[in-house]
Every structure is written in structure tokens, then in C-alpha cells.
């Protein structure tokens, strides 16, 4: 079932408070928080879009959950669809790349690590893209790069602001240089969109690193981060190996990046939709 239908299905349902529950597979009434270990009421956890009611821990959200969280019910229309990755290098490790992609598709139900579309945020039309870390670590290969590029080009044509939600380990190494060049391709597309005077708001989630952070995710007019998200170019383990020393506490967290001037603000999930909506208001010219 295409994503647009999936969301279309909800169109006439009750919205507001109850909409999160649509995503719950009720396999248990209680669950244990990954961060504080406290047992929390499943419905409560899902109603808060997977933020622990005890400690505020922001558990990962999938692409469809992000859409449900940020985009007005029934307004999402997927675009930049209909392409699937090839295996240009005939890449083989323990599994072939083709097998890796197929497994990711089966696991997530997504076609790729990004979902792009048009939609509304509190009634404001936007171009929207969301990455899903559970799809091969949210890595950017040719398909992700192409879809992101198409979205920015579409938004430039339509004079729409772009909102991106990233969670990615970086470039997809199984596509080699094809992947690397997606960084340049998406960055160039952001540049063209910016030239039209439209704005771009980037939400960085846990984790956003490597080739995605070093391309379109960092090029927004306004960068918002989720609390405690890991944000950095090189992953902490690699840095630790290179430096041969322990990294400082809180290194590469959203809070660290805020202090170092790399993001504008940290916004908890509960406030993200409202804040992004207000930011869009400020960066959209009033039609006079």
C-alpha cells in the first residue's frame, strides 16, 4: 500500500489526541523505557510519540510516525516515488547489497530510507522529507539522493518551504562513489531552492552523522535538534580511536552542538510541530 493511501485512510478518523494510537501495535500494556528503565504505560508512551513520561527520553521514531507527528492528518501526499536502488558495484560483503536492501524493505515496509512528500503543518503547506534510521541506518544512496533532490526541486518550483527530518549514519557505502556524490547533488539542490527565497528548516534527530549531516541536513536556514540527539560528522568511536583518548562527556550531543553554535535550538518532540509551524510563519512572506 503506498504511503499516501496509508495516510489517506486516516483522513476521516478522529484527529488530535487520538491519532498517535493508530500507530500502536498493542503487544503489551506496559513497556520499559530504554533510558531510565522505568516501566511506563504503553498508550501514554505512544501518545507522547515515544517520549518517556518519566525521564523525557526521546525514543527513535520511524518515517511514518514522524509524518503522523508533524504533518496534518490527511494532508500528506508522497512525491518522488517510483524508483528503487540498483547495485551498481555488485557489492558483496556477508550479504549482497541487493539482499541488504530487500531485508530493509521487508523490515520497515518502506521503499527506501527517506520518504518525501507535500503536506501541511498546522495548515501551512510545506515540502517534507523524513529519513528512517531503521532502513540501513538511514544511509543515503542513489535513491535517497535522488528523492531528496527531487523534493527540493519541486519545492523550488512550487515556492514552498522545505522541512527535513534527518536520522542517518551517513552515505551508503555499498554504492561507493555513487553515494558520495549524492552529498554534492543534494547540496546543490538545496542551493537552488534557497535561491528562490524559500526557506528550509532542518530537524536533526538521533543520530545524524556523516554524509547526510555534511550535506543537505546542515544547509538549512534554521536548524532544530531533538534533545540528546547525537550529531556529528565523524562518529564518536572513530574519533576516540584516532585521538586515543576518552571523549568529553556530552560530546556531539545536540546540547554540545547548540553550545558550539551549530544548531539554533533544541526542541522536545512535544513542541516540535508548533515550533516548526511558527518558524514557517516567520519565513514565509505574507501574501499581501
Amino acid at each position: 500500500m503506498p504511503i499516501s493511501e496509508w495516510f489517506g485512510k486516516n483522513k476521516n478518523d478522529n484527529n488530535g489526541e487520538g491519532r498517535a494510537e493508530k500507530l500502536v501495535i498493542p503487544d503489551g500494556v506496559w513497556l520499559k523505557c530504554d533510558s531510565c528503565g522505568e516501566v511506563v504505560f504503553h498508550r501514554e508512551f505512544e501518545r507522547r510519540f515515544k517520549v518517556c513520561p518519566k525521564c523525557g527520553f526521546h525514543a527513535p521514531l520511524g518515517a511514518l510516525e514522524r509524518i503522523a507527528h508533524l504533518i496534518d492528518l490527511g494532508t500528506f501526499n508522497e512525491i518522488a516515488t517510483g524508483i528503487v536502488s540498483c547495485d551498481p558495484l555488485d557489492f558483496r560483503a556477508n550479504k549482497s547489497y541487493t539482499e541488504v536492501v530487500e531485508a530493509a524493505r521487508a523490515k520497515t515496509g518502506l521503499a527506501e530510507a527517506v520518504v518525501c512528500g507535500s503536506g501541511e503543518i498546522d495548515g501551512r503547506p510545506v515540502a517534507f522529507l523524513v529519513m528512517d534510521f531503521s532502513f540501513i541506518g538511514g544511509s543515503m544512496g542513489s535513491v535517497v539522493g535522488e528523492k531528496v533532490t527531487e523534493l527540493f526541486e519541486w519545492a523550488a518550483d512550487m515556492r514552498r518551504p522545505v522541512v527535513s527530518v534527518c536520522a542517518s549514519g551517513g552515505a551508503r557505502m555499498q554504492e561507493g562513489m555513487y553515494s558520495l556524490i549524492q552529498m554534492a547533488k543534494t547540496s546543490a539542490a538545496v542551493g537552488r531552492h534557497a535561491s528562490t527565497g524559500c526557506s528550509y528548516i532542518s530537524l536533526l534527530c538521533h543520530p545524524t552523522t556523516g554524509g547526510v549531516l555534511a550535506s543537505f541536513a546542515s544547509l538549512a536556514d534554521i536548524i532544530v535538534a531533538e534533545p540528546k540527539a547525537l550529531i556529528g560528522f565523524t562518529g564518536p568511536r572513530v574519533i576516540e580511536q584516532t585521538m586515543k583518548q576518552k571523549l568529553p562527556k556530552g560530546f556531539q550531543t545536540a546540547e554540545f552542538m547548540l553550545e558550539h553554535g551549530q544548531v539554533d535550538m533544541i526542541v522536545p518532540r512535544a513542541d516540535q510541530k508548533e515550533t516548526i509551524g511558527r518558524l514557517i510563519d516567520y519565513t514565509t512572506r505574507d501574501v499581501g
Partner: protein
Amino acid sequence: MRKFILDFERPVAELEEKLEELKQLSSAGQPDIAAEIGYLEAQIEKLRVHIYSNLTPWQRVQIARHPDRPRTLDYIEAIFTDFIELKGDRLFADDPAMIGGFARLDHVKAMVVGTQKGRNTKENVMRNFGMPHPEGYRKALRLMTLADKNALPIISFIDTLGAYPGIGAEERGQAAAIATNLMTMAKLSVPIIAVNIGEGGSGGALALGVADTVLMLENSYYSVISPEGCASILWRDNAKAPTAAEELGLTADKLLEHGLVDTVIKEPLGGAHRAPALVARDLKKALVAAVRRHLTKTPGELVEGRYARMRAVGSFESAEEAAEASE
């Protein structure tokens, strides 16, 4: 005499030692040795041709990293005239891992930028082994923007294992610095020619690589991740780097085959360090040709062409076709 012998070069090196011994015996008066010397020389040549004509990707990576391999400044000296180095990002520091400045290429005024490795340990420490910090990328961007203002073509030299993975680099926005270069280079209205002379490591290399023409030396490599990094992630074993190098398709010939680079400059048998002047001569020819070709274009043509060039990169198929094909 070579200072540094790679593992796969050892058989040749051993024969060469033997040859040296024979020659000393010969010059010491030992008769009837000339034939043996001649035979050994032929053998050595045969072996060299055999080894260097059948380099594995991993062997090429090792040649790309050879300590005697010519660096950016060597090529600038050999290819350009009237180089004036410009320093600093005007924000935080001058990064010695990144160099740049004005220079003339066959009388054409140009801007050169490039990562710079050291020629020895002391220099390498100073140059941070050619791994730039954000200030290096910001310096390069400043110089490229200056080139744009003055309608000068840009020649960028790529030779880096990657952007430096350190605390300070993260604090000062390594990712944002690279991303900004990618976006801005796409908009510059002057010709940009990138040449990979050795290592082309990931985003830190691509941050100089958004170009109208991309050249590669025969034994340089260009990769989304280092073979070691790839091996450590996929096989949890650094020793699998040779396999990773194979899978990543990172050699010049492979990338040319995929249409991801434009021209490969041949190197002498054994690598560029065996005859740097020869490589410089051929590289110069290729650079001059590329600059000439692009200098006739209007700014609009350049920007559109560069965008289209990147826009076209991607390996994917329509979902329907894929579905049909798999039926």
C-alpha cells in the same frame, strides 16, 4: 634508490638487490657474469610489468598513499608559474593541511586550492597528514569565492584521507563546513577542474571535488569511505581492507568506467613518484585542455552544466521495471 618498498613490491626489490650484488662482482673483475646480469635485468623488467599491470585495488590504494608520491605543492611547482599563496579563513586559523593561492597555468590566471600532505614526518605533523579542519575548508571556500569575483578558473587538488576526525573539528562544525563548500561550489560561475592526485577520502575530498571536469591519476583512489573503515563496519575486521577496496570500486579505471570521472592520467610503471616530471607534464596537458574547454562557456552555461553533471549521478531504476525484471 627507493626509500620505501610496499609489500607487493618486495619480489622486485629482492631481485634488484641481487642484481646490485652481481654488478659489484662484475666491477670487482669477476668474468662471465654479464650474461647473468642481462638475464636478471630482463627478469626484473618482466616481473615489474607483471606486478604493476595487474595491480589490485588495494595495491593502488597503497601506491596512492606512498610516502614518496608527489604532493599538491610539487604539482603546483611543476605545472604552474607565479604562485602566490594566500592564507587564512578570516575566522579562526590558517589550516596548513589546505593550501591555495593565485597561479598561472600556461599563462592563464587561475586559483589553485588543494589539500597538502607533508613530505616527511615533521612536515606531516605540521600539515596534519593532509587532513583539514573546518578552517581549511573555509579557507578554500574563501579563495574559490575570490576566484569567482575575479573570473578566474579554479583548479583543485585532492589528496586526503579525509576531513580530520577530531574534537576541535567537530566543535567548529566540520560537517557544516563541508556542506557549505558543496553548495557554494555548485553556484560558482567560473570553471572548476578537480584532480585527484592520491587519496580521495569521503566528504573531506568531495568538499574540493564539485567540478566541471574531474581528473584522476591512474593510481589515485576516490571512495565514499576508507577501505579500512568499510572493512571494520561490514566485516568487523580491518584486515579485510583489501576486500573492501575491491568491493568499493574506488580505482580510477573503475570510476571512469562508471562515468563518474572524466579522464585518467597514466602514471609510469610503479607510480607517479617514479617519474614525477612526466606525470606533471601529462597532468598539465589535461588541465590546460580542460580549462580551455570551459573558459569559452558563459557563467550560466557553467553553472547549469555543473548542476546537470551532478544531477545525473545515481544508480537506480523505475520500480515498475524492477518489478517486471524480477518476475
